[in-house]
């Protein structure tokens, strides 16, 4: 699939995207593209509309206007699970793991789009499901190993340490074998070593052929790993450039970093 795809077609393209909540214009005419195989970051002060933008892309919220094209297909108006099925996975800013399920089971849910056993096959425990179930389990364990938490596979996910929960969530997202991975503040709440580990991991994921779009507050992380950065302020796109140029952009420094210093 991705081999056939023209390298010039972007993985994701936003065109004139708007989102209004009553009187609040949370996302205002945002357009940008994410090249296949790249790491792109969205930054901006609190309340700039970053998470709203993610929710629009992932189909959690309907856009008020504009188009979102994923792998050449318009996805605005599609439901979240349909978007997920097309090959987009995400993590959440406030981690959303499943209560009462082990880390392994959480990741196995991530394999949902890669498996097919239905309601009746499950109820009657048909032999056809056995092989698939084994495959789901094996791949999920592999991903937990990639995250270096395979030894915690049997532990209830919500009782894990914060960083480990992040890792489980990342494994769950990867389990769907996505083309595009949305990471909502992957380093929030992590210490400096864990953040470095996350940076290494994101690069490894990119090298696996997964395009990454992330929202992040940690500037060092963003500047280190991103190929390109989009800056949002009050819902509008302020700048879009390489990390080196963004760091020099006077307006970005004034509105984003300056405000950050003041705050």
């Amino acid at each position: 699939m991705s081999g056939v795809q023209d390298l010039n077609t972007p993985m994701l393209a936003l065109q004139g995207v708007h989102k209004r909540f009553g009187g609040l214009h949370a996302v205002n005419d945002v357009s940008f593209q994410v090249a296949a195989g790249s790491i792109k970051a969205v930054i901006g002060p609190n309340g700039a509309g970053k998470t709203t933008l993610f929710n629009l892309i992932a189909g959690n919220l309907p856009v008020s206007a504009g188009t979102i094209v994923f792998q050449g297909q318009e996805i605005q108006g599609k439901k979240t699970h349909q978007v997920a099925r097309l090959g987009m996975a995400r993590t959440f800013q406030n981690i959303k793991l499943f209560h009462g399920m082990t880390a392994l089971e959480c990741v196995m849910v991530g394999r949902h789009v890669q498996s097919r056993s239905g309601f009746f096959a499950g109820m009657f425990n048909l032999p056809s499901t056995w092989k698939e179930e084994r495959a789901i389990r094996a791949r999920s364990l592999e991903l937990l190993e990639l995250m270096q938490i395979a030894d915690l596979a049997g532990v209830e996910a919500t009782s894990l340490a914060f960083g480990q929960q992040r890792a489980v969530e990342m494994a769950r997202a990867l389990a769907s074998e996505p083309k595009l991975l949305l990471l909502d503040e992957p380093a929030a709440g992590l210490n400096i070593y864990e953040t470095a580990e996350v940076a290494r991991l994101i690069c490894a994921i990119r090298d696996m052929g997964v395009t990454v779009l992330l929202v992040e507050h940690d500037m060092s992380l963003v500047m280190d790993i991103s190929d390109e950065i989009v800056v949002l302020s009050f819902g509008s796109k302020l700048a879009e450039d390489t990390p080196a140029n963004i760091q020099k952009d006077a307006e970005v420094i004034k509105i984003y970093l300056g405000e950050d210093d003041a705050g």
Partner: protein
Amino acid sequence: MLTRKNYSLAGLCLATVGLHLLTVLADAPFYLTQLTMAAYYGLVIIGLGVLMGYAGQISIGHAGFFAIGGYVSAALTTRNLAPFEASWPVRLLDGLGLLVPGQDVYGAHLLTVSPWAACGCAVTAAAVIALIIGVPVLKLKGHYLAMATLGFGTIIYRILLASPYFGEADGISETPGFTLLPALGSWGPLVISGDVEHRVANFYLAWGVLIVGAWLLLNLIGSRVGRALRSLHSSEEAAEASGVDTARFKLQVFILSAVYAAVAGALLTHFNGGIGPSEASVMKSVRYVALVAVGGMTNLWGALIMGVGLTFLSLRGVFGAFDDAVFGLILIFVMLFAPDGILSLRLKPLLRRMFLGGPS
């Protein structure tokens, strides 16, 4: 997990035989009647348990589905179709061999639907109604979902109470027995009915249905679909992001639980020989919710054991005139003190402390 599930099911089979032996030893075969009924109610409760505990959707209208199953089956097997013999639906049924001719006490010609077809219709009707109701209802959450399902149950109750076809306040009686298997050699026929001669067979049949029902649900919970259901209970947003079509799975499990209720309703009606509108009342629906809650929302075995046990006690009249009040109290106390179910209370350490003293 797989083996544990099978051991538990085998244990349930043994318990069934054990219960039978107990009634024989105690020389109290009449207990079998209530045990049979309790098993059918248990089927409703485990179906509702999967909906509430695993998919996280409350339904205070499940007595409605139970009543649809019971009433449709009862009406089709008792209401005389002879006056409509010329109409095409009746002729179609006749052509398919699904009608049973008979005679009433005055010797008049009677034409009714065979129990097999009637039960099929009843369960299909419940499934279709669950589908129609489920699509809009399951979009609701929390209080709204509770009130909508309560409203659904009340509508069914009112309709049954107001329709002459369904016998109004009297319900439908004299429902014929349901011959599952004809007589084979030395074996008598397998008939679902309350007759004393069929008592033991019916006991095993009901518990067999319950065990098979539990087996299917346990399989489901452990499967890919079951994982998806559990995930949407905890976080619909994250489940959707993982590609789980939450609306569809909620609907499927809603229909499944409605089918469980309808099957139980239809079979129990043939066993009892009739059904009354109280089976559709809000109090019944609340009782099912209470029994699921007592057993533990995410504990199918708990729901099954507490459901069958308490229903049996209730049917034996242990709670007397306070029957409904007891279930109300149970509901409150379980939700106040043991929201994960009575069986989740750590009894072992508690007992140890009580009998041996000191910390556990």
